């Protein structure tokens, strides 16, 4: 809306015959110099700590920098080493992809589904149930309670119950057994994942114009699923796009939870992700050049995931 009205107030470059496009832009820049002054503080900090680091690690990924000696250009050696020489990196990629595809899309669908269900409740219930679903994502380290629930000794709640029921004879080492770690960590990650995207959906459902539903009912929408697919979701396309970005980014941000639950490194590297590989080479071994190559790969994976999902979502309801 505001874009359009603003554009109306400006002289249109095409209509001006006395100025070239460049002259018009420069004039416009001079008239609106206050805009640059007002965005400057934010953008200086944002560029320094968000954009420059990405570019810097891309550049450093072609060097052998180690924080002590001057970096030397080594071409694509780091990338060759990653793919051909580093078995653990390949394992990390595999784990990251499994982990991200299990948490990202499921967290997204759970957010959407439960926001939809919660929207059917009366307003009072709605805010209480929203709080219940949202709370785990903001409660800091409370996910460590899962370690107590699934503790490896007989005092762990789950072991205690299973032993009392006679289903197992000896306690199961949940967070040390490679068979259980991945599924458990995924469950815990999902438990903490109903965050910003969930709230965005909660809000999105509330602002859909109610009269649309009546019109749709007249037009032959028969049940709530049709209503969701043909009326609500197309109205919420922007919300869905935003929530998808938040879910995907979140799916690559669970490194700390995995470390907290199963140690660093996890037993047999079974929950070792690219995030851990990056931390290992960057934070512990100070092979900054090599770590930068890992960071660049992780960056590309995330941008690719976002682009693909974005393309898919733009087809919803069309």
């Amino acid at each position, binding site marked *: 809306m505001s874009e359009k009205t603003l554009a109306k107030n400006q002289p249109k470059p095409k209509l001006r015959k006395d100025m070239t496009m460049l002259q018009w832009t420069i004039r416009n820049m001079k008239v609106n110099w*206050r805009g640059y002054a007002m*965005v400057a503080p934010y953008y200086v*900090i944002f560029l320094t700590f*968000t954009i420059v680091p990405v570019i810097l690690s891309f550049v450093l990924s072609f060097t052998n920098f180690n924080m002590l000696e001057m970096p030397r250009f080594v071409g694509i050696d780091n990338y060759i080493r990653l793919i051909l020489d580093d078995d653990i990196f390949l394992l990390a990629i595999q784990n990251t992809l499994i982990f991200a595809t299990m948490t990202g899309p499921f967290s997204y669908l759970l957010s959407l589904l439960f926001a939809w269900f919660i929207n059917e409740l009366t307003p009072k219930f709605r805010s209480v149930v929203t709080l219940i679903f949202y709370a785990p994502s*903001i409660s800091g380290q409370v996910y460590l309670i899962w370690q107590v629930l699934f503790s490896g000794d007989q005092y762990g709640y789950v072991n205690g119950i299973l032993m009392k029921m006679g289903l197992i004879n000896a306690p199961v080492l949940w967070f040390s057994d490679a068979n259980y770690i991945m599924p458990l960590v995924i469950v815990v990650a999902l*438990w903490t994942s109903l965050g910003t995207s969930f709230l*965005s959906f909660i809000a999105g459902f509330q602002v859909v114009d109610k009269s649309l539903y009546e019109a749709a009912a007249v037009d032959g929408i028969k049940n709530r699923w049709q209503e969701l697919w043909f009326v609500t979701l197309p109205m919420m396309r922007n919300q869905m796009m935003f929530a998808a970005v938040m879910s995907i980014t*979140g799916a690559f941000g669970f490194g700390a939870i995995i470390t907290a639950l199963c140690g660093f490194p996890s037993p047999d590297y079974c929950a070792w992700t690219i995030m851990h590989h990056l931390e290992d080479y960057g934070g512990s071994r100070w092979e900054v050049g090599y770590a930068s190559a890992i960071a660049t790969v992780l960056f590309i994976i995330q941008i690719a995931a976002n682009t693909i999902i974005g393309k898919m979502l733009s087809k919803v309801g069309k």
Partner: protein
Amino acid sequence: MKKIRFRKKHRLNRSAGGDMSINILLIVFGAFMFLPMVYAISQSLKPLDELWMFPPRFFVRSPTLKNFSDLFKLMSTSWVPFSRYIFNTALVAVGGTFGHLFIASMASYALTKIPFPGRNGMFQLVQKSLMFHQTVAAISNYIIMSALGWIDTYWALIIPAFGSTLGLYLMKQFMDSSVPDSVLESARLDGAKEVTIYWKIVMPMVKPAWLTLIVYSFQGLWNTGTSTYIYSEELKTFNYAIQQILAGGIVRSGAAAASTVIMMLVPITVFVITQSNIIETMASSGMKD
């Protein structure tokens, strides 16, 4: 019976069976979300012999606040006075949050309401950077911090928080949808400066958005734990100190349970107070391609 039928008539496309299954799903998943939190609270109220009891019980039998008093006792014996950790967290959280609120909302105002060339590209850059997680930038950030000489200072924790991307994104989207241009035009005709318009007219109109920014920034900074930029003990945060207690083994398991509850209750309380404002902000969070 009549009443129910009357209500159903007014709810379009809703079947009783569907309502029932939705409620069942909400209860089942709600329990899955809620019970671990309840267990965390129950653990914090258990005396030591109940914490190490076989078979373990879900609910506490003889609740006690001893774990909390143990926690405070542990705090008072720490090498760096515990008040120092609390001061550090307060300084970082308050400083980072208000700096972020101020410069991000000022930038949002300019991006939304001043038609300077390049603003769309600038905003696109912020929007795109929501697409990758900060871990990607961690190592380079360390290099940048050390080049600036900020390693082991408060600046390393506070200043990057100013440039948080989600905050600017939400603020800009909210201003886009809830501040009509007509309000600004009359002020401009009266000769008001842009900074005055931003501070006196626009900021009071976007209260839900700045509350949201405060909550998000505060939550992020509250949960800042072991930062790689800080190694002096007296500059470390409350969350870090709590984690040290958590790592203390069986003897401290009671105090650890108590500390988890304290760490979780603060952000939850903040959210309960501000929930309606946050939801209002989120209503305009949609991303246009």
